């Protein structure tokens, strides 16, 4: 598979595909990080493998890893389309515009873009309700912090990331009114060196619980070294920090990839704005550390169940932003369309969103 992805990357496979008797559905994946990031891209690749396991010979998958968001992405997506893929998953926010652009030139190919909001005749989007996981994370962090200071390592100031910060903070505040949050932007999805530096800078400033919206286990490793606590991001990261690890919020893509491939095979696919979370088991909580206090463990399961059943909807008004404006009216819950446009911090976050 490595070699194949390399060849696709070089454009050598274009036109070289061998026609097979059953003509399997060819599915291409574009990853922003290395498959070995053990976070975001790793889980997408597990989803791809899940797809292969499910359909066997009926699908043929390829992936290209480490694709930078930008001009390179367009080139890679074009090559995957040219190589005869029928269905292409582009799995990072920054692939949005390149996906739309390439999709226009290949109307017969089906595209699915993760975490974006632009759709067209042959481009659907799928988004994880990661804010549901963040809510459980926030409640737990609020209970666990002894310094009342939570650290948040953020990647890029896009709605998905800002939404998650808000959800975390509201949840933490609901159990700990004194809680403060320090946010550090590293401007990367995957840069273990920088993530380590950021983790240490936060811990130097009194943070005892780390939350990350970046993809490497580096912050967890840094927390383990200093006896602090942290959460795993996107996949089960417990093995990197046996003591520090609180729990991981895992992205479980296989069910979605299977349903989409199935729809494309049957010809029933239509561009949709799919949102999945706890309820659909696309988002799961993994490896809750046995060293947590019993009341925290109980609260984790309780909060998880409440979010899953819809009893708790994190973005239900009244919510004020940190400048005092009422951004969600009392009684209203943000719709998916509105969720995709969150560009404010909730009241209590003493920081500003970098522009």
């Amino acid at each position: 598979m490595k070699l194949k992805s390399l060849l696709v990357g070089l454009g050598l496979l274009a036109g070289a595909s061998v026609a097979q008797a059953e003509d399997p559905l060819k599915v291409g994946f574009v990853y922003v990080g290395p498959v070995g990031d053990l976070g975001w891209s790793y889980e997408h690749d597990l989803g791809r493998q899940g797809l292969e396991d499910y359909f066997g010979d009926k699908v043929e998958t390829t992936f290209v890893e480490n694709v930078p968001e930008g001009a390179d992405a367009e080139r890679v997506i074009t090559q995957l389309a040219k190589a005869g893929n029928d269905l292409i998953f582009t799995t990072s926010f920054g692939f949005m515009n390149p996906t739309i652009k390439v999709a226009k030139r290949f109307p017969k190919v089906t595209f699915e873009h993760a975490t974006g909001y632009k759709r067209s005749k042959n481009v659907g989007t799928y988004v994880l309700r990661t804010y549901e996981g963040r809510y459980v994370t926030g409640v737990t962090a609020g209970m666990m912090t002894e310094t009342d200071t939570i650290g948040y390592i953020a990647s890029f100031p896009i709605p998905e990331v800002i939404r998650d910060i808000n959800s975390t903070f509201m949840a933490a505040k609901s159990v700990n009114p004194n809680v403060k949050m320090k946010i550090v932007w590293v401007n990367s999805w995957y840069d273990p060196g920088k993530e380590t530096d950021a983790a240490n800078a936060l811990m130097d400033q009194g943070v005892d619980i780390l939350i990350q919206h970046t993809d490497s286990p580096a912050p967890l490793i840094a927390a383990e070294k200093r006896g602090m606590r942290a959460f795993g991001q996107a996949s089960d990261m417990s093995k990197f920090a046996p003591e520090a690890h609180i729990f991981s919020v895992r992205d479980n893509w296989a069910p979605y990839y299977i349903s989409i491939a199935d729809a494309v095979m049957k010809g029933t696919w239509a561009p949709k704005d799919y949102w999945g979370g706890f309820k659909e088991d696309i988002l799961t909580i993994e490896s809750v550390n046995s060293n947590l206090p019993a009341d925290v463990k109980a609260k984790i399961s309780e909060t998880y169940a409440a979010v899953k059943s819809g009893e708790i909807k994190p973005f239900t008004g009244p919510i004020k932003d940190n400048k005092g404006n009422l951004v969600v009216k009392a009684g209203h819950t943000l719709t998916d369309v509105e969720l995709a446009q969150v560009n404010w911090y909730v009241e209590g976050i003493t920081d500003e969103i970098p522009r």
Partner: protein
Amino acid sequence: MDADLIVQILFAAIKTGTPLLFIALGEVICEKSGILNLGQEGMMLMGAVVGFLAAYGSGNMGFGVLAAMAMGAFMSLLFAVLVLHVGANQVATGLALTIFGTGLSAFVGADFVGKTLQGFQPIPLPLLSDIPYLGRVLFSHDILVYFSFVMTIALIYVVNKTRIGLTLKAVGENPHAANAIGIKVLRVRYLAVMFGGAMAGLSGAYMSLVYTPMWVEGMTAGRGWIALALVVFASWRVGRIMLGAYLFGLASIMHLVLQGLGWSISPNLLAMLPYVATVIVMVIIGADHFKEKLLAPRSLGKPFDPRNMA
């Protein structure tokens, strides 16, 4: 900012500055012999990946460090053969070495991305680490940081006080004169270049065995280039390289620290700090052209062929 935070920041600056210190120490010795090796980044990446593989495979961190140094030295030997024997252009060959190392390291390490190691653990030095403030900043590090201290002091001594240092400088200043008094110019240059390579490998090992500790493609993130600027910044003085490395280390973590403190400055602007610092230093030094000429080894970058004596 309280005293504790400042101590933590300085501690982190030393940790961040250490890979820069290693690689710049190697490069300054190389340049003192008159050879400009722009392959630092490539050698560093190869050191990082080979060090990681060796340590991962053997379970022995020390072996990883040695393997990384050997790899760096081997890469620089390739460079030295091309430059010293074949007479290839130093700048072009160095650049080629960087491009080669970047690609090859990504290829070699592809299957090891995301694997992690325990890494070297910090060893607070007895007594010294109990000194208030200073003890935490300087003497609570891992073994490689202490090695960088020892290395710097040793190099200051060797370069300034010994015959070896004198020979090295003679070769770098005037290889023809050095040759005339019987110094084997090429042999000195080979050794200096390989020392530089070994230090670049060590610097890479520091990244993949201590700093992160894991292997990721392109993980050195331009530190090899910063090291080249550092040598100029330090005007080819070993002691100043240490100072410069820690300043650069400080600049590169300050943007994360300031964000945590809630300064509302764009993180993008702050992230530029170390690079802006590099440019400013270059401008300041470059402004005094005469001085720059005086400080740089006079034959830097120029080929020397003993068979072709005028």
